[in-house]
């Protein structure tokens, strides 16, 4: 059983992909140049990470204040939800091509295109997280003489941290996975391996996918850790 598994073509190609990650390989279309290998993997991973963080930053800049404001006011639920759903339906490649004519291709184009993916989950989760805070708690805070801003900062946001982070983590996964299309708009990323099967071979395609998955998991764990740090002890106790 295990022997059959090990000799299966799927596992054999995983072996090839891992080799591709660590050592440059021959390619039939490059006139003798070798492709892949650790240096190129690291370079493309960093480029993909940079683009992901830029797009995530822009999503947060747009969605977080808006979500906090609407959630605190308790209005605009329809807006937040509709925008959230419509945002998911925008075809990225069409958006990139559309912006290419206006602002050209490159980091700016991709940052905006990828932020479009990040805004909906952050906005929806921020809105829901803030809005769902027990109104009695908010009234009590108000009764204690807190200003509206203090209520948001000291009561609502701490209580909304888990929901809010679920949005940020969802946005991160969507952005880091989609950043593989960056080579179609003038920026290097791990997508170079995935889009360039003629150059990198099927080992390269699989290697690209594996590294993207690892990068996504790393970011997911990092944000989970950050979430634990930021969640108030009281809330952890309650949910435990």
């Amino acid at each position: 059983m295990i022997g059959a598994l090990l000799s299966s073509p799927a596992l054999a190609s995983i072996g090839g992909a891992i080799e591709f990650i660590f050592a440059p390989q021959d390619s039939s279309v490059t006139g003798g140049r070798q492709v892949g290998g650790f240096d190129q993997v690291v370079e493309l991973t960093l480029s993909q990470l940079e683009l992901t963080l830029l797009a995530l930053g822009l999503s947060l800049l747009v969605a977080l204040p808006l979500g906090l404001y609407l959630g605190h006011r308790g209005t605009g639920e329809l807006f937040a939800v509709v925008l959230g759903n419509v945002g998911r339906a925008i075809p990225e490649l069409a958006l990139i091509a559309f912006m290419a004519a206006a602002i050209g291709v490159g980091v700016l184009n991709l940052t905006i295109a990828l932020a479009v993916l990040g805004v909906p989950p952050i906005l929806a989760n921020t809105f829901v997280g803030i809005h769902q805070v027990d109104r009695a708690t908010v009234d009590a805070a108000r009764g204690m003489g807190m200003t509206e801003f203090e209520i948001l900062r000291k009561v609502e946001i701490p209580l909304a941290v888990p929901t809010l982070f679920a949005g940020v983590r969802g946005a991160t996964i969507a952005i880091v996975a989609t950043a593989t299309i960056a080579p179609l708009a003038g920026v290097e990323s791990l997508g170079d391996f995935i889009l360039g099967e003629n150059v990198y071979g099927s080992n390269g395609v699989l290697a690209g996918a594996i590294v993207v998955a690892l990068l996504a998991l790393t970011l997911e764990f990092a944000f989970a850790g950050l979430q634990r740090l930021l969640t108030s002890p009281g809330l952890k106790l309650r949910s435990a």
Partner: protein
Amino acid sequence: MRIKTTRLWGALLLALALTLGVAACGSDDDDGGATTESDGGGGAIVSNPDNGKVSLTIGSKNFPEQEILGEIYAQALAAAGYKVKSDLNLGSETVARKAVKTGEISGYPEYASTALTSFFGKEPEEVPADAQGAWEEANAEFEKEGLTAFEPTPFASANAVGTTTETAEKYDLETVSDLEGVSEELSLYGSPECPQRIDCKAGLEELYGLKFKEFKSVDIGLRYTVLENGQADLSILFTTDPQLSAEKDKFVILEDDKEVFPAGNVIFVTEKSVAEEAGPDYEETILQVQEGLDLAVMQELDARVELEKQTPKEAAASYLKSAGYTG
């Protein structure tokens, strides 16, 4: 009186229909005569009921010209009586060749030059310049792996370094060699695979000795957009691009004086066993409908899809009809 009028109209319509029919037949013969010499056929494709037992899946790579070719072959084979499905937009040549080998598709159109450089490890300068020679060499290689390639189309396509007429005038560029000394100031845009490919940027660097200010990769569909919006000084284009004839005063290609970009005629690649099973009509139909595909016709079809936004299916159908292959 009423009956008579109806009859009169009927007769008129019949006469009109007959005239059109005769005219259509006439044009068939003309087109056939003009475009097909070798097999002497050229007329409409005849449906053979025996072919109904054979199912074929026609594939193509993922850009308009390929999808048009895939549609032309698929629709022609359907007209010949085969049960035809199409699976276009397969991705790169590596994916398409794998799909033929695994039987996922029956066959797809490939450029002979691409087959030789991408599959069979030939350097661009080793690719025979004549269509027949390139096909024979590619076919011999395909035969070794159980595949076969049908004879080439009249038109050939190649990569080319393109630029705007303004840039060409500014730097006095006519050939790729003219880039020597100025390429360091110029940006080059091409597909994500381009930097590594010997028939793309790698060849420009190694065989022409050029260095560029920067290279940026873009989707093939944006190759003119980046020139138009002024981002790219140079962009990798295709010699069959309709933009080159439709917008002659805007874009030019630089002559490939050291032959880094081998021109490739299209050969239809299929599995030998599929070809045997499908019978002689398979190859005959494909060779018949591609007879009319010279450079002007292919550019016109590319223009209908890329500039006029017809679907590849519509463009292929109108080609088959106007050339008289289908009714």
